[in-house]
């Protein structure tokens, strides 16, 4: 038993004497000491593991069990088998919400990545002024989502003198109802999402661009390639891994979208923007149908899992 492991915190107070014994102990049990006691790493990991257990893994397991139960607070849960899943899958509302979620996720992912790449290409390089513009462009990412939603609600004011409508008016387009009109509500939420997502993707692309081989640009220039050709044949292939990482991140972000929809439309008008998460929230916390809500959540989880696995498999095949 070496002294220094008994209570390391007490060590600073003790003088050189302890050190000597410590050194002696090293000689005897050098290997053991380097490894520490078997439980030392677990002690350091304990807070993290405990919190993960309580707030990630137990909820995960309980989502699974709840999805097979009729959850009745105080009365005890009743096992109903796959009834909740049947309810969810047969409900037109859920199917519609799933479709909206996919549309929103696809639109936001594509829009943010495309715009993010264009921004990154335009603002690649160094310089103080450029740094300023990049930081300003990045601001939407750090603004809390609740603020983004309230701000855009005001900008989307549906009358002709609303902020965005007056800009539309300048270029000759009629006033749009934006989030108040079932025809444009989904596109409006998507636009807000792209506004907040594109600068994030831009930053990641910019980081990826630094690793693209500069020599290849030179070579392409010598070969007489145009700018677009340079981007297409040198930059885009160089960014391949960035693309797939961003795709997974953005698609998962899109599938689990909640706050901006909840605050901008809460699923309306006429359910035109109801997504899976707002539906689950309503089922679980407003109608108290926790079992059905949990079944919906499990299905959403399976969807994100499949998406992640598919993208990883595609990447692996591509790299071969």
């Amino acid at each position, binding site marked *: 038993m070496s002294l220094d492991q008994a209570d390391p*915190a007490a060590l600073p107070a003790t003088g050189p004497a302890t050190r000597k014994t410590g050194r002696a102990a*090293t000689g005897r049990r050098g290997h053991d000491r380097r490894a520490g006691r078997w439980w030392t790493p677990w002690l350091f990991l304990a807070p993290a593991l405990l919190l993960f257990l309580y*707030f990630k893994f137990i909820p995960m397991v309980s989502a699974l069990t709840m999805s097979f139960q009729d959850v009745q607070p105080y009365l005890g849960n009743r096992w109903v088998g796959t009834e909740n899943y049947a309810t969810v899958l047969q409900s037109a509302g859920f199917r519609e919400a799933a479709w909206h979620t996919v549309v929103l996720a696809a639109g936001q992912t594509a829009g943010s990545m495309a715009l993010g790449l264009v921004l990154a*290409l335009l603002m*690649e*390089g160094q310089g103080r002024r450029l740094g300023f513009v990049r930081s300003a462009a*990045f601001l939407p990412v750090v603004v809390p989502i*609740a*603020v983004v939603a309230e701000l855009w609600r005001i900008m989307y*004011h549906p009358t002709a003198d609303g902020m965005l409508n007056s800009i539309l008016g300048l270029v000759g387009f009629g006033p749009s109802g934006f989030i108040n009109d079932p025809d444009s509500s989904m596109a409006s939420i998507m636009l807000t999402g792209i506004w907040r997502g594109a600068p994030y993707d831009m930053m990641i692309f910019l980081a990826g661009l630094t690793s693209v081989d500069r020599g290849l640009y030179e070579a392409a220039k010598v070969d007489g390639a145009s700018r677009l050709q340079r981007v297409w044949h040198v930059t885009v292939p160089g960014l391949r891994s960035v693309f797939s990482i961003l795709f997974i991140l953005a698609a998962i972000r899109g599938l689990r979208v909640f706050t901006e929809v909840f605050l901008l439309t809460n699923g309306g008008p006429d359910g035109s923007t109801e997504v899976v998460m707002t539906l689950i929230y309503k089922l679980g916390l407003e109608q108290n149908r926790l079992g059905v809500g949990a079944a919906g959540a499990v299905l959403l989880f399976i969807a994100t899992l499949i998406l992640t696995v598919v993208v990883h498999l595609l990447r692996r095949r591509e790299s071969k």
Partner: protein
Amino acid sequence: MNAPTETALGLTESRSPGGRILKAVTYLLVLIVFAGPLLALLVGAFSQVKDPTQLSVIPSGATLDNFRIAFDQGVLAYLLNSFFVVGFGLLLQVAVSVLAGYALARKVFPGMTLVLVAILATLMLPEEILALPLSVILSDLPVVHFNLIGTLAGMIVPLGAWGFSILVMTEFMKDVPRELEEAARIDGAGDLRIFAQIILPMCKPALGVIGVFGFTMIWDQYLLPLLVSTDSSSYTLPLALRTLRIDPAVTPGVVMAASLLALLPSVIVFLFFQRSFVHGLSSGALKG
């Protein structure tokens, strides 16, 4: 030709008059699209905006009324709730991350791979999907039977362990030279001392990264506070914005004043720590 700074479009190196104009127009457009709405928010918070149609980036009729009314509506209490949650949440998150990072980076032990996989799994697992069971669990924590619903602790504790900051910390701690640790061991230092006096001081940049990201993440929380809070006394400022907006007596100007207060802390943190922010963003996304 300045080869080392050669970029894909070559736009930023261009020094011709045409190139300069193109650059200026591009930057201006980017500023209008991304910073414009936030400028309108800033201006709106300090103007007499009684109606959403009065939103504009051109200041008119400067006033502090919006803030006065916002404070009458209890915005200060919401702001304090938010600060409380982010303060203790970040403290807990950083403490948990550095401890876990030390074990994962500096130790080899059976079960380590399993722990890493479990942490990665939590990152893949969107917290939104766990919302319903989490709300049930928070009302009666298994084994200890605490009810965290309606308490600020309920908004803090679940954020204590965040896979992202644990992994960032682990990566940084791996880079601290072994020799330093060896020397300390020979001098008789134990794990806790090596952790606190050698590894941790070498990880200041990483602490910056996880601090900034943790702050932004906790400040941006919406669903968790929504699940936990039972009445407005435990609302954080982002939650309170919706309540304010729904109140017919409250003008959009007041909502914007409160919004400004809700976004300032994260914007200030971002502007001050941009370097760590961008660094963490790229390392987190490209290594992970």
